[in-house]
Every structure is written in C-alpha cells, then in structure tokens.
C-alpha cells in the first residue's frame, strides 16, 4: 500500500497539511519487514509511523490487534492516543485506540486483554507483561505492525534489550509482523537498524530532511557563574528575562536535585507571577500529569525539567530550550535542542547555561561540536544476560517452553544475535536451579523439565511473583513523601531512601518546588509539613548520571592548550589563567595531579578527563592501593574530569599508584568488595530475578527487612565466585559503571608522564569537586579510627561513659 485513503488525505488537506517526503517514504515501504526512520523532532515522525496503520485499518475489515506502539514514556503513550484519536474520530474511521501502561486501571487492562483494540500504545514493561500471560497468543492474534518510538533512547538501555526479546516472542506468535523504528538524529543509524530488525533480516533506513541548523549559544549573564556548584542560581535573572521574551521555554537540568533548586530560585525571582511548572521523574504522577496537561493547553510560560521531558510529548509551542549545566554528551544536547520549535522548517533556538566555570569550558566545547555536527557515541556491547534471565522467566510464566525453540527465538533479537548456546544454557540453569556450584535445590527448582523435555514453573503461583518484579529500570530505593495532617496525606513525590535516612525531624528540603519540613517516617512514607521561608537542605534524588563523552573531553583538553581564550567569557578565561598561574592546566599527553591540604585533611586531585564513571573507578582503585600503602584514604569524589581523594597522609610519589599493570591487578582484586560492584550486582540480581523488589502482600516494613543484596554478593564471592551473576556483574561494571576501558585509554594517552604539583591550598580547578554530591567513603583503617573517635566523643558528651557499667 503506498497511498493514503482519500478520507485521510482530505482530512489532512482540510488542515493545510501536506505529507512530508519521509512520511510518503514510510507509506511506500509499508510492506517491508523492518524500516528505521530518522527524523528531527517536529518532523511528524510519529505520524509517519502510523500512516500505514491508518491506511490499512481504514477499510474496517481487520479484527483484533493490528498495531502495537511502544514508547519509553507512559506520558508519550497517552499523548499519542490523544493525537491519533483526533483524526480517527473526526473522519469517523472504524479504529479503536487505547493505551496500556503501569498507570492503566486494572479493570481497563482486563477489558483490553479480553478484547484488544486495533492500536495499542504501551511501554516495554507493559508489553513484556502482556507476553507473560498464558493467553498471549490470543491477545496478539492478528498483529501486523509494531512501531517503536524513540528507539535511539531505548537502544541505549536494558529496556530496549528487553523490548527486542519481547519482539522476538511476538514474531513467533505473528510471523508476518512488520517492524518500524522511529529515531532522533544519531551517530550510527546502522547500529540501531540491526538492533531493531529480526536477525538477520535487512532494515532499510529512511532519513528525513534534518531541517535548518539550530540557533544555539551561551546565555549571557550580568553575573559570572560561581566557581563551583550545579545550581546556576546566578543565571536566574537572565533566564527570567528569556522566559519573558519567549512564548514557552523548556529549562532542562541534568539532575532532579538541580531542577528543584533552580525552580525554587526561579520562583523567588518571579515577580510577575508567570505560570512556571516543574517536571521530573521523582514527582508524584498526578502532579506531573497536571503540568503536562497545562503545557499542552499552552498555559505555562516555562517548565523546569530533567530527562523526564527528553522524549516524546509534542509540546507544540515551545520556542526556546535552555540547558542548565554542561550537556555531557553532544548527541543528547542536539536531541534536547530539537524540543524547541516543532515547526519543521524553523531553526530550534537554544541557550546553554553553564552552572559553574568549568562547565563554561565544556559548554563552549559542546557548542563547537554541535556546529560541526560531530555527534558522539560509544558502541554498546551484546545484550546483557540478566535481561535474558528475566525473559526466560517471563517465557515460563506464559507456559511450558522448549529450550531449543526459545534459544532460536532469542537469537533473532538484534542484541542477542551472537549469543552462544552455552551462555543461554547457563541463564536457563540459573532460572531453573539458581545455577550454583552447590546443587542445593533439587527439590525446589524454580523451573522443572517435564518428561517431554519442556520447561515449566514448578509452582504456578510463582508466575505472580515474577510478573510483579518485571522490568529493567533500576531506580535507587525511593520512598514516598506525603503531607502530614491532610486527609490521606497528599503525595508530593519520592526521595531516595538513603536521603530520607539522613533526615531528622525539623530538617527542611525541597520537593516539587516547595520547602517542606521533615516530621517523621511512618510506614515507609516520609511525612512532611509545609514550611516556606526556611533555607532548605538539598534532597538527593537519583538523577541519571551520564559521563561526559570521550569526544567532549578531548575537545576540552584541546581548548586548554590555547594561549588565551577569546571565545570564552572573561571570567572563565581569567579563571583558567589563575589556574595556570597557581598550578597548571591539564594536558592531553600528561596526567596532572595536584596535592594540597584542605580542611585538616590531605587531598590529591587527579585530572584524568576520563568521564565520571572511569574517574569513579580510578578513585576506587587508587584508594585501595593507598590503603595498602598506609596512606589512610578516607574517601573520594569523582566528576567527569577529575577524582579528588582525601585522607590522613600526604601522597608524595604518585607514580607507583598509576602503574598500568598494578591498576589492572588492582581491578581484578578490587572487583571484589566495593560499593560500585555491589550496586552493579544489585541491579543484575534484581533484573535476573534473584532479588525480588516486590513480594505478594504489603511492602516490607523495617521489621521484616530482609538481608541486603550486599550480603548475597559477599556470600557468592566467598563460596561461588564463578557464578553466573558474578560474571554478569563483572561484565556490567566493566562496561558501564566501572568503565575501565576509558582508564586504559587515559593511561595510554599519558604513557607514564605524570606531573605532581604540591600546592599550599586547593587549586581553582579542584575547588568545584569539594561541592560534588556522591562522595564515596573508604571503609578502611582510617574510617575505623575515626569511628572509634566519634564513638568515644559521643559517650563523653552524653555522660554515659561515667556510668558504672
């Protein structure tokens, strides 16, 4: 089918809309097994994905589900439903459209299963859940097309891997299923095409006209950015002026905490009481939806937001995007800029606001990269096995399966195309028996092999538990925040459990743009009261931390080589001059280390420029080595460009710390007992189904608190170090959180050339690190010494040490 039914054509014409060439191209390829469309935001991308569906359904003869639309955001599914229903209802097409996400009421979900709509809009998690039902074949009967929106974002995460496995399942149920991927501009379209297509099917790539180059610059402010910090409060007046000068402004932040602070300050400066909203993933759903609805109605002049608005929703009238803080990644910056001005042929307008002086440099580097169209990207490895384990459990929920058949199906998913059979079998064994060297669970295997060779759940009730724990999104443990006294307690949002644990009654913090006072913890809910006016503590929400890309780091180091910086604002150029005077600027071919006393501790600052994750790993490896050498490290903090370590002793000879072989060995040994590995293990163990976040019945309260995943990790390390999950954890950590590859790149770059600068005090470049959140304590000899001191002090202060014991 290559043309639109006339009813649709007329409807479009009546609105003065003409079909874009890429939309026509998608119609022409409607019968292809797989097509990837790459188009800028505002190019009618989603409609391009749906036109063939509307054309095929217009006749009214199709029964059951026809098209599945999958988006990474629940909000996007709801939004598309609205946008699609308009033409369908106005033209009177016989097409039923519905969405299904975690937020959909159970009654509606039941109806959808019994009588599926023609078009179902959903998320990867809800789709996985649907495939886990015994009647999956009936639900998906008739399915012709699947449209994966924002596939560039999904392909970067385990959610995408899970989705591709689910599509492999669907393809078995519906052999003629055709796939369409919709993507923003990316560095490597072919990689996404192979990811999406049924292996080894081809996938044609349709490139839409990218439109005019964006109008992007740095925000000019009267006041210079601070030396440190991420709040960008200095830019409030300038940002306010921009908001007034534009119709609707999106203000992006890299973390939720920064969004909260900025919103708070913006509101204090909002003398004209302009309607400004805040939107991020930790806010209560009702609040988020209210902001989204107000935005769609064009009632808001600005929204302070995070990655929660990176994707999807068509805001229509946004004419300015402001990015607060360095963008870390050029590709993501370009995609965010695309949020402004959805008119296809007008340039997007964007302003970058560095939060501190270092970020001025990074923003400058990013601007140049955008101008040169130089997108960054790191290839992703093969599909992770923890996701495969979950997929095997999901398959078992749907009914008995044959291992050969499932293996064949799994290897049709792009990310798992190269999966060896042995790796699959290990995952199956893990799901069935736990996969331990000690065969302890013969009686209680989770999956049993039947006489006919098929695998099934031993206890059918386990299916409910597996379904409850489905999904690959790993948030830190979040707990709800509610207003005390109001009836039922009005929910405000969520904070990390670790943050809640640091609160004592009377503490204030920001959530949803208001200052609240912590009253107490009740049934795993933080109870607060309104408390305007007091200076708030900062809530540490889990913002996704992206590392600055290799390419951006290289650009920054190249800028440092310049004699002067005419393209940088005066204040930043002066600061770099000062650093050059007091110490020196880091160079690409040499590792700069500064050593200085600060706040009665010794510090060293290592400018590796290897990105946040690698700098974090470097911190772990170096502190371990320092511990062995008796240098009493106490902790460290890492940013994208440096690692700052503090401890009790001065480091005078750093060379032995950076011996590549010692670091490699240290990595192997250390891969053992550190917090980053434990975090990686927790993620993998949860996805693979070993740790259940949700169990039937109420959420665990403190009393029934179960052992932590750390204990499971320690136990496996001690008794079963070659266990599948340990292997997955190692791979995972090396790839993402540990990012050892970039440390090795850095070492190769410096080839042993290290400069140690002993300074009397902290250097201009090192200062921002002290204010970084996410400090990692080192639980070593020094920590034990201080713990004893603190305990003695507490006993003395309280007078309890004088009591006869």
């Amino acid at each position, binding site marked *: 089918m290559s043309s639109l039914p006339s009813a649709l054509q007329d409807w479009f014409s009546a609105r003065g809309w003409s079909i874009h060439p890429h939309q026509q191209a998608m119609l022409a390829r409607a019968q292809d097994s797989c097509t990837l469309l790459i188009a800028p935001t505002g190019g009618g991308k989603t409609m391009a994905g749906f036109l063939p569906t509307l054309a095929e359904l217009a006749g009214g003869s199709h029964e059951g589900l026809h098209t599945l639309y999958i988006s990474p955001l629940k909000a996007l599914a709801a939004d598309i439903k609205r946008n699609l229903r308009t033409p369908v209802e106005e033209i009177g097409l016989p097409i039923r459209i519905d969405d299904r996400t975690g937020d959909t009421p159970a009654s509606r979900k039941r109806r959808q299963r019994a009588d599926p709509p023609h078009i179902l809009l959903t998320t990867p998690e809800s789709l996985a859940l649907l495939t886990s039902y015994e009647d999956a074949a009936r639900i998906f009967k008739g399915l012709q097309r699947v449209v994966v929106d924002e596939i560039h974002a999904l392909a970067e995460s385990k959610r995408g891997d899970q989705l591709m496995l689910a599509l492999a399942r669907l393809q078995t149920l519906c052999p003629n299923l055709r796939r369409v991927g919709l993507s923003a501009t990316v560095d490597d379209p072919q990689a996404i095409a192979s990811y999406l297509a049924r292996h080894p099917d081809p996938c044609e790539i349709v490139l839409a006209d990218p439109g005019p180059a964006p109008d992007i610059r740095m925000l000019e402010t009267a006041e210079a950015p601070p030396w440190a910090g991420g709040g960008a409060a200095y830019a409030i007046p300038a940002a306010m002026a921009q908001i007034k000068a534009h119709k609707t402004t999106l203000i992006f932040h890299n973390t939720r905490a920064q969004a909260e602070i900025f919103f708070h300050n913006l509101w204090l400066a909002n003398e004209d009481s302009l309607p400004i909203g805040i939107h991020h993933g930790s806010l209560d759903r009702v609040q988020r939806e209210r902001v989204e609805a107000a935005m769609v109605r064009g009632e808001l002049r600005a929204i302070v937001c995070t990655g929660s608005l990176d994707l999807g929703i068509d805001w229509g009238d946004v004419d300015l995007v402001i990015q607060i803080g360095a963008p870390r990644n050029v590709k993501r910056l370009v995609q965010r800029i695309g949020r402004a001005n959805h008119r296809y042929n007008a340039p997007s307008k964007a302003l970058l606001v560095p939060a501190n002086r270092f970020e001025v440099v990074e923003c400058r580097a990013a601007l140049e990269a955008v101008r040169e169209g130089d997108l960054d990207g790191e290839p992703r490895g093969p599909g992770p096995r923890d996701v495969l384990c979950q997929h095997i459990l999901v398959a078992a929920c749907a009914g008995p399966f044959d291992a050969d058949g499932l293996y064949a199906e799994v290897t049709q998913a792009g990310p798992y195309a190269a999966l060896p059979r042995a790796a699959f079998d290990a995952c199956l064994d893990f799901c069935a028996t736990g996969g331990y060297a000690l065969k302890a*669970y013969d*009686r209680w295997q989770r999956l049993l092999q039947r006489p006919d060779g098929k695998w099934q759940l031993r206890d059918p009730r386990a299916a409910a538990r597996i379904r409850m724990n489905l999904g690959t999104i790993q948030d830190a443990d979040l707990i709800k925040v509610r207003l005390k006294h109001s009836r039922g307690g009005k929910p405000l949002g969520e904070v990390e459990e670790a943050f809640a644990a640091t609160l004592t009654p009377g503490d204030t913090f920001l959530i949803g743009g208001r200052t609240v006072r912590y009253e107490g913890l009740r049934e795993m809910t933080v109870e607060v009261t309104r408390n305007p006016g007091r200076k708030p503590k900062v809530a540490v929400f889990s913002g996704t931390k992206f590392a600055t890309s290799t390419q951006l780091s290289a650009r920054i180091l190249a800028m440092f080589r310049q004699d002067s910086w005419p393209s940088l604002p005066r204040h930043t150029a002066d600061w770099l001059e000062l650093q050059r005077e007091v110490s020196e600027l880091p160079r690409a071919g040499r590792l700069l280390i500064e050593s200085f006393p600060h706040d009665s501790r010794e510090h060293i600052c290592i400018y590796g420029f290897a990105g946040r994750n690698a700098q974090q790993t470097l911190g772990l490896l170096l502190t371990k080595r320092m511990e062995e050498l008796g240098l009493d490290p106490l902790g460290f903090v890492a940013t994208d460009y440096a690692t700052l370590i503090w401890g009790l002793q001065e480091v005078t000879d750093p060379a032995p710390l950076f011996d590549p072989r010692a670091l490699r060995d240290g990595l192997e040994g250390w891969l053992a007992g550190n917090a980053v590995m434990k975090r990686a293990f927790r993620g993998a163990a949860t996805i693979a189904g070993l740790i259940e976040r949700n169990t039937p019945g109420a959420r665990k309260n403190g009393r029934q608190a179960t*052992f932590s995943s750390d204990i499971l990790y320690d136990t496996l390390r*001690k008794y079963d170090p070659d266990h599948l999950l340990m292997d997955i954890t190692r791979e995972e950590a090396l790839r993402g959180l540990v990012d050892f590859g970039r440390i090795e790149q850095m070492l190769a770059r410096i080839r042993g050339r290290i400069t140690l600068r002993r300074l009397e005090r902290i250097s201009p470049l090192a200062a921002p690190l002290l204010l970084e959140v996410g400090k990692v304590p080192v639980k070593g000899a020094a*920590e034990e010494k201080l*713990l004893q001191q603190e305990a003695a002090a507490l006993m003395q202060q309280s007078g309890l040490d004088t009591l006869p*014991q």
Partner: protein
Amino acid sequence: MIGFDFTLAGARLTALGSGTLWWEERRLLCVSDLHLGKSERHIRRGGSALPPYETRDTLVRLAELIAILQPETVVCLGDSFDDDAASRALPDGEKSQLAALTQNRRWIWIAGNHDPAPADLGGEQMAELHLASLSFRHIADPAASAEVSGHYHPKARIRSTSRPCFLLDRSRLILPAFGTYTGGLRSTDPALTFLMAPDALAILTGPQALPVPMPR
C-alpha cells in the same frame, strides 16, 4: 577478642565484636537469630534461589568463635532455624557441621517465633533459660529485668555507617542477629525505643565492639 565489658544484674558480661555475648565466669557463649536454612525456606515458599551457602557460612563463623573461646555452654537465643521445616531439611554436610559443635558441651536451643519446635539436632530445647540472676528468652518481655534476648536484629547508624548492634540498658540486653542472611531493624524504630531506657547504649559490632548512646 576485643569486646565491651559490662555488668547486667551483677553478671560480668562481654559484648563481642562478632555480635555474640560472652559470660566469662560461666564460660557461656550466647548467639541469637542464626536463621539456619533461610535460603531453603525462601525457595520452598515460591521465592528465588538464593545462594545456598548461608547456613554453612553461619556455622563456620560460629565454629571459629567456639574454637577460640572454648565455651562450656552455648545458648542459641531462638530463631536458630528459619522455620521448623528448615531444621528438618538441613543438608547432611551442615548437619554434621552442627553435630560437631553441639557435642562436647552443653548446648541449649531457646525456642523462637520462627522455630517453636525444630528437629532434634543434639542439645536441649527449652522455652526460656534462667541462669544465676539472668533470664534468656527470644523476645524481650517489657516487664522483665535482668533479661537477655534477641528477635529484633537491632542495627544502628553512626557516621553514616550502619551496623548490627547490641542494645543495653540496666534491665536488658538485646543481641544482634548472627545469621548470614539476616537484615536489621534500626535502633530508631518505636519497637526498640519503647523497650530501651533513655540512657541505653548501642554496642556496634565490627572489628571491635563500639559502645555509643543508642541512636533514637
């Protein structure tokens, strides 16, 4: 072994960094909440297959302590098994590990809420033990004094480090859990702040037993 010495109802006792209680005068070692067989119970009841090494690990740590201290009596303060069925399902290796410990000394299993009637694996089973001025029971009785109990798995947080701990006041001592797969209840929980006097201590476990004012 670095411990914290104190007196409860006239008895000179030592809280050890391992989370166990040593009564030198009686050569008595007291441990609480071993939760042996936890992983077996977990999967039996439809949960996932946890690494099946925790019983072995708990017993190895206990055996090491016994080898050092050479106690004449060992008191297990209840919840020694994750449930009664787990006590019966103990694998042979762990059974003989345990048998080696219960022989050659007095061994007392106090009943817990998880294990009211465990399998007979050597030693005596009783609901409570009264020895000199002290009472040993699983769950603290708010009205009692001179009492040693377990059950709550207390833990406390100092310097953002959270560790299992003993809780001690003039009337009672609550032991931390010794089992490998055991979580903890914060000392700030109302159940614990209600039980313990205002001047109670939390004794943190670790390389060295560390007393601090009980965080409330």
